[in-house]
């Protein structure tokens, strides 16, 4: 009985010492998870998640402060990737928060007054122009974030869906007529 007690005391002294030592000695700083999450996000910097850009959203997810279903441009696939990365369950988009068709912003140059407000709103510097000069969207850089729509005082910016053409056309997933699973 007494020996059992001594054994317990001895073991716990030793283990406690080891644990207390390593808790200080091997403390890990920083969070590599943020980088991993950021790599999954589509980098539209659109702020639709409620955070000012992709990186802040990634940080919020890593801290557990934000849900994984707040990024419409990433699509459901993005949520799946995040779910897998974080080891949590997939969570569908909320009502009306789903992704829209891919589009680029387009400035109606007849109406544009060259106020530069959209330039300041664009998170990726995809609008070219200077004060009092008409602006143009560099479509190849435009992420379709729509952040330029609101600031425009003359509402000359619209989103133009990217149409399918021979260049961006994709092969369809082959339809297998045989598997007729009734939609449940």
């Amino acid at each position, binding site marked *: 009985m007494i020996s059992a007690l001594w054994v317990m005391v001895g073991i716990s002294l030793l283990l*406690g010492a080891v*644990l*207390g030592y390593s*808790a200080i000695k091997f403390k890990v700083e920083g969070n590599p998870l943020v980088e991993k999450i950021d790599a999954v996000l589509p980098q539209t910097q659109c702020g639709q998640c409620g955070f000012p850009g992709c990186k802040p959203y990634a940080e919020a997810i890593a801290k557990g402060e934000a849900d994984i279903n707040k990024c419409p441009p990433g699509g459901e696939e993005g949520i799946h990737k995040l779910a897998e990365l974080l*080891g949590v*369950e997939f969570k569908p988009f909320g009502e009306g928060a789903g992704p829209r068709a891919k589009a680029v912003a387009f400035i109606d140059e007849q109406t544009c007054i060259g106020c530069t407000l959209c330039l300041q709103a664009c998170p990726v510097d995809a609008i070219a122009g200077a004060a009092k000069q008409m602006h143009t969207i560099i479509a190849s850089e435009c992420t379709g974030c729509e952040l330029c729509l609101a600031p425009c005082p003359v509402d000359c910016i619209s989103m133009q869906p990217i149409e399918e053409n021979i260049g961006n056309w994709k092969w369809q997933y082959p339809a297998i007529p045989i598997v007729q699973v009734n939609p*449940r």
Partner: protein
Amino acid sequence: MNLQEYKDILHNGLWKQNPGIVQLLGLCPLLAVSSTVVNGVSLGLATALVMALSSGSIAPIRNYVPNEIRIPVFILIIAVLVTVVQYLMNAYMYGLYVVLGIFIPLIVTNCIVLARVEAFASKNAALPSALDGFAMGLGLTAVLGVLGAMREVLGKGTLFSGIDLALGDMAQGWVLHIIPDYKGFLIAILPPGAFIGLGLLIAGRNWLNLRAEQKARSKPAPSIAAPEAAQG
């Protein structure tokens, strides 16, 4: 803590986050002792008891345990409680103790116990923690019972065989012979039967869930917020 929250805890343990068929934790004893209802339920109840006690006793001291030795202390407490239960069973339910054998001490290493302590008891007050532990244990017991019943009926054609081991000699006549003169479908009793049975149970739960979801989708219902799922 209001009534709704207690309800949620129960719902979580028994259905939504059922350790046996949702979290898939503590499968080793689950598969090993579920060959009959009595075995399954007995071990399940023993586990539930340990879980309720460990969660309930760890919750009040959670703020005094330094983070560095959190896990060792939790494990220590769980181990003590399991050993106490083991002594008690050894003393007062010897037959069952022999049948369950190694799986009683193995409750210590059953990850569902530590999982609940870590995920719930270390963040909540004593009463809800104890309830959570017990609910999770009951969830496990339910799975063990159902799986045991499936395997026993299919494998032996009986129900509650060995109940006298748990409840004493007076229960000897309580064994139900569901199918008289049954040849026995041995694979149900043997380990493969446990895996197949558990698979069917998980499938069945998913199916029920899917159906409920479809119903809910056809007429939107308020969603019930639930504490996060324990992982691990």
